């Protein structure tokens, strides 16, 4: 009986392969976008964890100095009973890029910090004696084939771009003999007094990278979820339709003795089967999506946060499981209403299909109420809450509220159109359109979400781009940027440049904690370059004079916002003393707090600051020649002398890649929405025949009817696009004013780009037109017999 019942239920799908295809496609697309984003996130997080757990830094306390620490200090601490292990970290230039080189002492390394299995076959001796052995990940190794480095060994526990060597070899490779960066402290080791200059730093629970990139991943997750929600609209309508069409079958089965529980169970089994099939397909597609997007994500993370993420994807079992889980959960959510109806199906109602998914006035009113509540909640969150979650909460409320409000708004609009209509056809057109709304509203909601997301994100990205390029022009005012290899070389270069450049401005920086957070501290020379160009958001009137005399400092917007700093507030400096804030400058693309002092003040505070980087002012038309001359004179590698244009191009490239993923997801979401629309229209076209046939019989040609149907779809798309505009702008505002501030620490001005809207509107109409084309064409080509069947006696 169960088998018979199930086969009766399943036979429906074989007779309507299109419906089955829609259901499977919708569900697998939704699953694909969701699990694709999850795969990217998982890959990135895994690589942060790996980076963070390099040498157990996520769980071990460390001893640090103001700058580099002498190796003798380490030995002295060991001999005083500290259980610690020395580490030397630095960047090692390799052709085309650089490596994060980590030197360790394998003998004293705490077990939690052990990353690599040493000594297989060749033992410890080659590791600690020249030329040493260098451990890198397989991916990194592949890129280092001809780099003239020590022999490479692959250790996949290392993050990409990181190389592990013995500390002695690190000192040799980095040319820093007798120096270490910090010391790892064994857990549970007795803590003793530290000599001056050294401080004990407790482990940071979450890695810096994980925290910095949280916002980025939350962003991706939000988009993935949006795409998933849009996909579920397809699933919901496909399931709803299939259930409505089988209502007579359900009744017959019930009448033949199948219990309500059994019937619901069978339908549930059927749905789970479909969900699993679609889920597997979706996860496989998600893998494809992730693999396609990951290189851009990796480039973004590396450019924006310096986080190294491999460009290739690992298959994680957990990810498969969650992908399938989300497919099943999505199916159940989409089917809940239909299953509930089957459960409560009255046995004796006439076996005639009823307009499916017709929302009663009461349901619509209820939905509108919820929508208004959500919108109010979003407003409240923006007014009261701060931070990323409040921002995303507001976004969710805004989008969902607007989507839920859409059917009522459209219905009202159509009623208004009907009342205003003069001709009988126009009147019928409006009334008929209104009649279609319940069946179309889900896909229209999906379209609204996709369009609004496009408008919102597009506005944010374009505003950001406009601001960012202007800011780059201000910030990169010098013609050339020089990085000397040694201080001696720098000194020679300064002499060489004396007669050749208009000005040479030092760019020295140190790292220290400011107000308890790690910060970069820069020195700034007093020069017109800065006085004229530096992008100050707030400034005291005499800011540059006070800076020149070392009486004040500048902070970046991120630090100012995080710490609530305003002009005149004092900022304590490492090593004592405090200076008032004389200006706040914008600092896009940098997640870290930054402080600028006069160069003298910086060097007084951090005497060990390497004096290697300089900005060179020269007449712009002479810059290229000077650079050429200088490279030749000092045998300087290209990357050590960059011109303004190159840096700008690089920065913009990072910027574009940052939003490439967002743009790709945007397009995919719009595609899914178009598909949802197509599915709905196909469904409706089959069901609308009884409504169209009388009108046809009363004297309208099929071509006219088809034209009206196309017009109806385009009209709805246009109305939805209009509705998406304010929603999208609201979205953009929340992104710029709330989410960006919380995620990155900067607030951007909002610019609107009506040209983009026109383009998007055209795209929406095109999508709607394409979605409508098949059903409309089908209508136009309908044979009279198909229409006449409506009038046949036996239905």
């Amino acid at each position, binding site marked *: 009986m169960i088998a018979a019942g199930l086969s009766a239920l399943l036979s429906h799908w074989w007779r309507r392969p299109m419906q089955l295809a829609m259901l499977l496609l919708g569900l697998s697309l939704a699953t694909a976008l969701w699990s694709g984003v999850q795969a990217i996130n998982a890959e990135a997080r895994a690589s942060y964890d790996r980076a963070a757990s390099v040498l157990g830094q996520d769980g071990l306390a460390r001893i640090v100095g103001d700058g580099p620490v002498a190796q003798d200090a380490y030995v002295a601490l060991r001999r005083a009973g500290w259980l610690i292990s020395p580490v030397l970290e630095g960047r090692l230039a390799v052709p085309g890029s650089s490596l994060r080189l980590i030197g360790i002492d394998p003998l004293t390394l705490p077990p939690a910090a052990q990353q690599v299995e040493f000594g297989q076959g060749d033992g410890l001796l080659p590791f600690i004696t020249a030329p040493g052995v260098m451990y890198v990940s397989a991916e990194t190794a592949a890129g280092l084939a001809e780099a003239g480095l020590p022999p490479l060994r692959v250790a996949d526990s290392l993050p990409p771009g990181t190389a592990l060597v013995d500390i002695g070899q690190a000192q040799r490779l980095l040319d820093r003999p007798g120096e270490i960066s910090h010391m790892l402290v064994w857990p549970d080791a007795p803590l003793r007094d530290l000599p001056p200059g050294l401080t004990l730093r407790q482990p940071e629970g979450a890695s810096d990278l994980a925290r910095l990139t949280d916002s980025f991943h939350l962003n991706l997750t939000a988009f993935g979820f949006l795409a998933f929600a849009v996909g579920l609209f397809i699933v919901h309508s496909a399931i709803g339709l299939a259930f409505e069409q089988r209502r007579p079958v359900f009744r017959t089965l019930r009448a033949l003795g199948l219990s309500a529980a059994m019937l619901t169970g069978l339908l549930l089994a059927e749905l789970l089967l479909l969900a699993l099939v679609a889920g597997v397909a979706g996860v496989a597609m998600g893998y494809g999506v992730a693999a396609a997007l990951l290189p851009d994500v990796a480039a973004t993370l590396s450019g924006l946060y310096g986080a190294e993420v491999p460009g290739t994807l690992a298959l994680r079992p957990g990810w498969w499981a969650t992908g399938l889980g989300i497919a099943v959960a999505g199916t159940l959510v989409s089917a809940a209403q239909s299953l509930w109806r089957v459960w409560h199906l009255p046995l004796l109602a006439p076996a005639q299909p009823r*307009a499916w998914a017709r929302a009663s006035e009461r349901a619509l009113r209820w939905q509108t109420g919820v929508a208004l509540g959500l919108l109010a909640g979003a407003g409240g969150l923006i007014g009261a809450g701060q931070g990323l979650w409040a921002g995303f909460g507001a976004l969710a409320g805004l989008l969902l509220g607007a989507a839920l409000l859409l059917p009522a708004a459209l219905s009202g609009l159509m009623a208004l159109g009907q009342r205003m209509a003069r*001709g*009988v*056809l126009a*009147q*019928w057109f409006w*009334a*008929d359109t*209104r*009649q279609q709304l319940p069946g179309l509203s889900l896909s229209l909601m999906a379209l609204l979400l996709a369009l609004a997301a496009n408008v919102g994100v597009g506005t944010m990205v374009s505003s950001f781009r406009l601001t960012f390029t202007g800011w780059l022009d201000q910030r990169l005012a010098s013609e050339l940027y020089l990085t000397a290899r040694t201080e001696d070389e720098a000194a020679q270069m300064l002499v060489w440049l004396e007669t050749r450049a208009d000005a040479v401005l030092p760019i020295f920086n140190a790292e220290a904690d400011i107000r308890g957070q790690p910060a970069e501290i820069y020195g700034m020379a007093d020069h017109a370059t800065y006085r004229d160009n530096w992008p100050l958001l707030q400034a005291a009137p005499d800011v540059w004079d006070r800076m020149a005399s070392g009486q004040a400092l500048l902070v970046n917007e991120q630090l100012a916002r995080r710490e609530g700093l305003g002009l005149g507030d004092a900022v304590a400096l490492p090593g004592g003393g405090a200076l008032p804030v004389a200006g706040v400058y914008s600092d896009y693309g940098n997640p870290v707090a930054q402080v600028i002092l006069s160069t003298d003040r910086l060097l007084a505070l951090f005497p060990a600051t390497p004096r290697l980087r300089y900005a060179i002012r020269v007449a712009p038309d002479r810059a290229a020649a000077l650079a050429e001359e200088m490279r030749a004179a000092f045998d300087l590698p290209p990357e050590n002398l960059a011109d303004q244009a190159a840096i700008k191009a690089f920065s913009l490239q990072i910027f574009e890649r940052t939003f490439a993923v967002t743009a790709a997801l945007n397009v995919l979401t719009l595609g899914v929405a178009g598909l949802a629309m197509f599915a709905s229209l196909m469904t409706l076209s089959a069901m609308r025949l*009884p*409504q169209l*046939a*009388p*009108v*046809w*019989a*009363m*004297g*309208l*040609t*099929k*071509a*006219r009817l088809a034209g009206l149907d196309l017009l109806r779809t385009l009209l709805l798309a246009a109305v939805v696009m209009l509705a998406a505009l304010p929603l999208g702008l609201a979205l953009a505002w929340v992104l710029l004013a709330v989410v960006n501030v919380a995620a990155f620490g900067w607030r951007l001005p909002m610019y609107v780009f009506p040209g983009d809207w026109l383009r998007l509107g055209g795209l929406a109409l095109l999508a709607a037109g394409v979605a409508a084309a098949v059903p409309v064409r089908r209508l136009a080509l309908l044979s*009279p*017999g198909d*229409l*006449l069947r*409506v*009038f*046949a*006696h036996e*239905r």
Partner: protein
Amino acid sequence: MLLTLTGVEKSYPTSEGPLKVLHGIDMVLDAGRSLALTGESGSGKSTLLHLVAGLDSVDAGQILLAEQDIAQAGDAARAALRRGTVGLVFQQFNLIPSLDVAANLAFQARLAGRFDAAWMAELAGALGLEGLLARYPEQLSGGQQQRVAIGRTLAAKPRLVLADEPTGNLDEATGDAVMALLLRLVAQTGAGLLMVTHSARLAARLDARLHLSHGRVAG
């Protein structure tokens, strides 16, 4: 002569090859007269009605309706014919669910461009629909719906009314009442009436009868 059919043939494609439904039908109907088409299921009576209505095209033969050969008319011409010359009453009523009763009643008249408010009001009164004008089709009983459908057809003042089992979905008492209304109002407008029915009792109430059997006029 309002309607003249000469040698009308029609077949439909089926999986076993074309199925001939009508084998050369000849028939005439005068304005102001009513004719009942009777016959078994599958005898071709509905098909004949649909051909006369211009809903479908003939394979061979001629249909002259109001001096126009609709067998040769194109899609647009036949649509114009349906709009202006004929009126259809279906067994399933086939009202437009998105429009209220008043709009349904006026629909075809306005489509045909001959909306007449006075005539509408008279029809509504005659059909007993005055109290139902603001309702929607789904809120009406079957008899009420068919009265709206009859009103919709007559409001456009067609020259020929085509009815396909108009009482087939109604109980006998309601059916008789609806039938009486239909006959009275058709007579009042002076239009011709061609009605398909399988009921000899109903057929007897019309001026003439034509019995179809296996696609041929029998007797």
